[in-house]
């Protein structure tokens, strides 16, 4: 009988693997940075801010950055002509639980050079704060609001940091955190009462909607819809 290669189905019988096991393997840097010009340049220029780098799934480069310098590094990645990561595809967060840091993940793409890059910033649980990148990418606005809503990460300098998915008067915390109970913190009776007491029209205030404002034009101020209303 010939030995066959391990397939994904072979692990099904073993059940879920504890995240502790994979953690030790994942703390090492993998991949050859010379394959990806941006990772190579990042290590060269901001080597002290990079804690590690990793090659995921064959072609996805992941670089861990010191959160205190994230804005500086991301601005350089966006504006340097050799990199020009002009598209912020996604800003999201991960809570690994057990007191480990919450990571803010930036998924970027350079339409000029055709490269993707993922930047991760680990934030300790007692200091969930990071600089907003709304001034660099407009698309980060709602994505950062989502991370704030679901993980409780505060984005310094965000023009409009409030909840986006959960009700605006939600008082139970940030649901995607590992210390958040599955069914929420209040009883179902309290949740139902609070839900029905919502003012549904406050989500759609007429003054929030500004028609005809060229808010996506680069020469207009970076503050979003609030300022355009006055002018």
């Amino acid at each position, binding site marked *: 009988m010939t030995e066959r290669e391990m397939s994904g189905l072979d692990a099904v019988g073993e059940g879920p693997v504890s995240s502790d096991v994979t953690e030790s393997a994942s703390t090492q840097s993998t991949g050859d940075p010379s394959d990806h010009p941006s990772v190579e340049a990042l290590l060269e220029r901001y080597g002290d801010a990079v804690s590690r780098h990793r090659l995921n799934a064959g072609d996805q480069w992941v670089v861990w950055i010191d959160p205190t310098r994230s804005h500086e590094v991301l601005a350089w990645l966006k504006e340097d002509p050799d990199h020009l990561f002009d598209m912020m595809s996604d800003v999201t967060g991960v809570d690994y*639980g057990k007191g480990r840091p919450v990571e803010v993940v930036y998924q970027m793409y350079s339409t000029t050079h055709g490269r993707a890059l993922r930047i991760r910033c680990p934030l300790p649980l007692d200091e969930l704060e990071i600089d907003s990148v709304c001034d660099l990418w407009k698309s980060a606005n709602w994505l950062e609001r989502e991370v704030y809503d679901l993980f409780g990460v505060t984005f310094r300098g965000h023009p409009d940091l409030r909840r986006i998915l*959960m*009700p605006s008067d939600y*008082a*139970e*915390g940030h*649901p995607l955190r*590992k*210390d*958040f*109970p*599955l*069914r*929420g*913190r*209040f*009883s*179902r*009776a*309290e*949740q*139902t*009462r*609070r*839900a*029905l*007491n*919502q003012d*549904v029209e406050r989500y759609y205030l007429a003054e929030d909607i500004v028609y005809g404002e060229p808010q996506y034009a680069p020469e207009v101020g970076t503050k979003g819809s609030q300022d355009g209303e006055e002018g």
Partner: protein
Amino acid sequence: MGLGDVLPGGGVSKTTGGILGPGTPTFLTSKVDALINWGRLNSLWPMPFGTACCAIEMMASAASNYDLARFGMERMSFSPRQADVLICAGRVPYKLAPVLRRIWDQMPQPKWAISMGACASSGGVFDVYSMVQGIDTIIPVDVYIPGCPPRPEGLIYGLMMVQEKIRQESLTKHFEHRAEDPATVGAPRANDEQVVGLTGPFGNSTRQERLSTGDIPTPESDEAADTIVT
């Protein structure tokens, strides 16, 4: 013995002919209840409140293969003001709960509600912080349709159960049966104990620990500290 002798009624006319031909009665008697119920149950206008995959089955029920028009329900009423039966098809998150309640309050009497599928009836697999655990905590429900999602036959059977319910109704009992207190508009339908009872853990979720860490966190407001923790 002809039909004229069997059917209730009168005014037999030899010259103009009756409703079933010469010699049959020219009018019939019936109960007002039967007439009104017959009219209501054959022109139920549904208010579709489709939020998930159940809505696809609801649309299939209205399309030509299953053809709800056979029962007088082809006119989906997208205005609650002109609807008779609310079909809640799909999961309802807490953020949508006041919307559902307002639509129900906007529907004129007489009105009926159908909870279509597992999620609308009990929360289904979504036994989580964001999901209403059965719309019967918010509005009164006449018919629950099981399934995930129910097939169009299931929805049609549910609607026919509503028709059967209408057939049993009577004008003399109707108003007290359907009376609504304006003070309850927008309020939860059930009291706290009933809501907790209705939304109790089902199925696999009973094995889930309430807190993943085992620590009880302090609620962020004092008001919350007084509430029941299920």
